[in-house]
């Protein structure tokens, strides 16, 4: 019995309820929203980015006309499966802690011969006229870690330092509103307007949040990466613009990714 048939089975139950109002009471709004989200899981448009990203990954591109298939994401050249679940990490060749996006930029420069500026151009897409290759590449690589447990290490001193810097940045308050990440994400069971806010200082909150990015944003019709999520949080914090793959973005990602350790990675996801 296939998924469609099973879903039809459930649908029939809903319709029966329609004609037998006494049998089933009113479902709560929360239950119905959960049902809405469940219905979107089957056929996540993020897959369109994954397909395009895999194609881009394997295409010979850039001045050197080579693919990214020999890119070392931390598992040795060519290792993609499970790579994202161990990022960010320290890379000796760059002598720097890197998140996925930083490492893709590194490979585009070192392997494909792009300039750093070209590799970082257009990190976030906007409609079909301004598609971001980076988001597609990120969608592909992250999809290859689906189901794998987060396992971000703090072995190298620079990894330990990045984690501590990320924690400081998380609690850093500034700007005209005195906001920091912790303003919205430092306590349990809070919401902004009707939107639930994960408590990123706790393991459960960090796991739930970190393992579900990138995500296809229904409200925007775009796939959004974790770099984008951080960028847009700082916009709403009234900070200046966070630079793509900057040290602060990587340190903050290290703090949040490490806090998510132990949870099965489950993205690209789909969100409101």
């Amino acid at each position: 019995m296939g998924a469609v048939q099973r879903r039809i089975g459930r649908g029939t139950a809903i319709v029966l309820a329609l004609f037998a109002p006494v049998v089933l009471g009113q479902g709560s709004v929360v239950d119905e929203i959960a049902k809405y989200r469940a219905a979107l899981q089957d056929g996540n448009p993020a897959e369109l980015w994954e397909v395009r990203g895999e194609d881009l990954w394997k295409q010979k591109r850039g001045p050197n006309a080579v693919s990214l298939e020999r890119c070392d994401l931390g598992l040795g050249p060519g290792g993609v499966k499970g790579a994202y679940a161990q990022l960010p990490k320290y890379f000796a060749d760059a002598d720097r802690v890197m998140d996925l996006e930083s490492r893709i930029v590194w490979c585009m420069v070192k392997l494909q011969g792009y300039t750093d500026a070209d590799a970082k151009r257009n990190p976030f897409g906007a409609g079909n006229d301004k598609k971001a290759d980076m988001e597609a590449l990120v969608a592909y690589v992250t999809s290859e870690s689906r189901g794998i447990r987060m396992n971000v290490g703090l072995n190298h001193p620079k990894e330990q330092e990045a984690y501590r810097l990320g924690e400081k940045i998380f609690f850093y308050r500034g700007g005209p509103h005195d906001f920091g990440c912790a303003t919205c994400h430092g306590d349990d069971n809070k919401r902004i307007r009707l939107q639930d806010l994960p408590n990123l200082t706790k393991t459960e909150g960090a796991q739930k949040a970190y393992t579900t990015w990138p995500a296809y944003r229904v409200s925007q019709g775009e796939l959004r990466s974790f770099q984008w999520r951080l960028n847009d949080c700082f916009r709403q914090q009234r900070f200046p613009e966070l630079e793509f793959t900057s040290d602060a973005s990587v340190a903050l990602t290290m703090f949040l990714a490490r806090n998510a350790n132990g949870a099965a990675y489950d993205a690209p996801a789909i969100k409101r």
Partner: protein
Amino acid sequence: MHRRHLTFALCAALGCAGILVGCATAPSDAEISAKAAAMLKASFKERGQAKLDRLDQDDTQKTCSEYAGRVPPKDVVDRIEKVNLASIRWPADGKFLGDWKSGEKIAQEGRGKQYSDDPAGPVGANCYACHQLAPQEVSYGTIGPSLYQFAKVRGYGLEIQKYAYGKVFNPEAYAACTLMPRFGHNGILTEQQIKDVVALLMDPASPVNK
């Protein structure tokens, strides 16, 4: 402390990062804080109305960041509240209440001060993002306490009006390291806008007090 000085002296003398990694103790909390602040400066770029000086912290922001969500010790709380209370500019006309209807609009308005916002456009207080106010608005946040029936339970008197004005102008004067923005102190809202928001909280005709 002694040992770290020694390490730095040694490394400075030899000019080698490798030894630093090999022999240094982990950097202190203060060192990490200073490095994080410098890292932020290097990681952001100005955009629209959001310039890099927004990353500069005043003493309140810096101190509250250091306590990382925990309540600071009493002497620190007293210091922050004293400084912020002294900075409040009270209305010259001695009146605290404006128009609650304008206040409701300001409480609903989420735009303002973001680099994506028009600098000439509206700047709101976005109260509903964090607080329940008028019961008609069901889309409210819970980061701050419910303010429904604010004056009905506290009283409509001048002292409460003054407290409400001061709290919106500079909440750090009353609760050190609160999550609430200092709307007057930081120049987010004008005096008139604050009066209007206070009216939303205090006016007997406001839906908040129904």
